[in-house]
């Protein structure tokens, strides 16, 4: 990997981490309504995959969607504005954290329905195939979503039609309080790919370089008409399922153990410095730049006007 890519991947991950910290603070200040789900710990997946995507490639995301959004180059200010229920937010305050889309960058949206985005990405890939472009679609979803019917039906459809779609399963070991160890009788989710006739790949989701490499291959194959891939990234979420989760289903030891052992940012700092792709000072500078950018984004968002009143039918129908 070249220096520029390595530092960019680090920057994306650092932006995601900081975004989650900042929105957690805002939530604690009662400025955010509803629920937020932190992506902290899983940054390497979104960053490593989206690094290969163009603005005209599509993604579908999940309830834990901030990271995908940022990696797909969303504007932070508009994201915060959405969390704060402002008219200047991505969805004009109508969507909130679980429903941020940025179609200008090919982000078809977060999704509050577990597994809901999987067929949608499949359909986006069908568009690419039908129109003869080399666009690809990526669906991000969790280990929990891999037990939804939508996963099964979509992967089969993509396989028989050889659609340019990459199914990225983020196995963060839990679906809410349910550990993947109990929700599956298999240890490696990527073996499911064989049941559809597509390649299945499993990578260490802490290692952004590994994700980057695996995604590169899958995306290149898809672009060239080689069909779909199931890419399973082993990961861990640092925070609870949602802000305020009492985490009764985990021990303190487990959490602390993983949090130190499994940190994609620390990991990346390690090999970037080791391989001479960047210095600690350069990385610290990125950290500071990200923090500054974040504060500007929050300030911009907080200055925005509240969501405008609903308009019927325009808000709901294109025509009526």
């Amino acid at each position, binding site marked *: 990997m070249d220096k520029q890519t390595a530092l960019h991947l680090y920057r994306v991950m650092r932006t995601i981490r900081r975004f989650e910290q900042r929105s957690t603070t805002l939530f604690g200040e009662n400025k955010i309504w509803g629920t937020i789900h932190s992506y902290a710990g899983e940054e390497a997946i979104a960053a490593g995959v989206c690094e290969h995507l163009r603005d005209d490639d599509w993604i579908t995301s999940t309830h834990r969607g901030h990271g995908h959004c940022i990696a797909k180059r969303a504007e932070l200010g508009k994201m915060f504005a959405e969390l704060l229920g402002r008219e200047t937010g991505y969805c004009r305050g109508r969507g909130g954290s679980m429903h941020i889309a940025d179609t*200008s960058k090919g982000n078809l949206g977060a999704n509050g329905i577990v597994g809901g985005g999987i*067929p949608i990405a499949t359909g986006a890939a069908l568009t690419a195939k039908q129109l003869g472009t080399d666009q690809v679609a990526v669906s991000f979803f969790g280990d929990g979503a891999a037990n939804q019917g939508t996963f099964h039906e979509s992967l089969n*459809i993509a396989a028989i039609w050889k659609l340019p779609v990459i199914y990225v399963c983020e196995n963060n070991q839990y679906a809410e309080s349910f550990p993947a160890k109990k929700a599956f009788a298999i240890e490696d989710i990527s073996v499911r790919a064989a049941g559809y006739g597509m390649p299945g790949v499993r990578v260490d989701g802490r290692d952004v370089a590994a994700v980057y490499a695996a995604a590169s291959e899958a995306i290149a194959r898809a672009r060239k008409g080689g069909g779909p891939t199931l890419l399973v990234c082993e990961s861990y979420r640092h925070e609870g399922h949602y802000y305020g989760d009492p985490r009764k289903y985990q021990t303190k030891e487990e959490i602390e153990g993983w949090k130190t052992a499994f940190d994609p940012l620390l990991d990346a700092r390690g090999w970037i410095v080791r391989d001479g792709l960047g210095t600690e000072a350069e990385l610290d500078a990125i950290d500071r730049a990200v923090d500054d950018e974040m504060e500007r984004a929050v300030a911009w968002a907080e200055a925005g006007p509240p969501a405008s009143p609903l308009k019927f039918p325009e808000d709901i129908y294109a025509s009526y």
Partner: protein
Amino acid sequence: MPPTRVPSSPAAVLGPAAVQETREMFYAEALNDALRLEMQRDPRVIVLGEDIAEHGGAFQVTAGLLAEFGPDRIRQTPISEIGLVGTAVGAALTGLRPVAELMYIDFSGLAIDQIVNQAAQNRFMFGGQARVPLVVRTQGGSGRGNAAQHSKSLEAWFTHVAGLKVVMPSTPADAKGLLAAAIRDDDPVMFIEHKLLYRTKGAVPTGEHLVPLGRADVKREGTDVTIVTWSRDVLLSLEAAAKLADLGIAAEVVDVRSLVPLDKEKILSSVRKTRRCLVVHEAIKRGGYGAEIAAIVAEEAFDDLDAPPRRLAGVDTPIPYAQPLELGVVPQVADIVKAARELVAG
């Protein structure tokens, strides 16, 4: 926003210069014609569904399209209802104009999450960033001995979803015109046919033919009672109206056509004229869309009514198999005649 009032005959829509040639077609043929013309007109229109290719669809609506458009545009899918509808939603979001076929409306429950949580809510939820030009074609109703899992009338579910449009044509001409309009519409549309209508015939304009969504159609004028209805029950109501005429009762038959958007004005103005309203539908009565219409009429035309608004609808039961039982649980012509007479007498 109620739709602008425009006369509903095709000639009127297109202007007098464009009076069109018509041909007798089956309802299934008229739908086929609409699909063919729209696919010819716009390469982004594709069809997805089960059994739609070589077989031509369970009711032959897609017959011949595979030969003309090939397997890329007539995309036969595995038996994966939520997969196929969700794929269509994604395709609609990214530049295609898919028509997804659900073979029976009874199976729509398997796909309803994508229809409701994804397609219908997309525009609102994401602040208007995208459009979802998706048509979900399906068919419902009893009358063929298909029993409880292949005979339901579930339009009410879909009317109760913000962001969806719901269309139920009764005649071949309306079927063609409404399907073409639904395909050109930028919102998700549930397009619900009736299995007993496919083999009914009528004059259909042969060329481009559009019936705008949101306009009811007075299929027969009358002064004594308004029958508000849709889909196959329009035909039964017209038969009933003919019988009622023999009995000296002039029934007006309002074909709702588009349940959402609903042409409230046309319904209310008819009811204000006849002062009596009978809503007829095949779906079970409890929670049916007839309740919505009866409630609107009661709420908005109360003082113009000479009798309570009345609903005639399916019995609150799953559809039975044996033919005599099957016929007994949904309104028949004689039931409509009887209900209308009682209403006029009452």
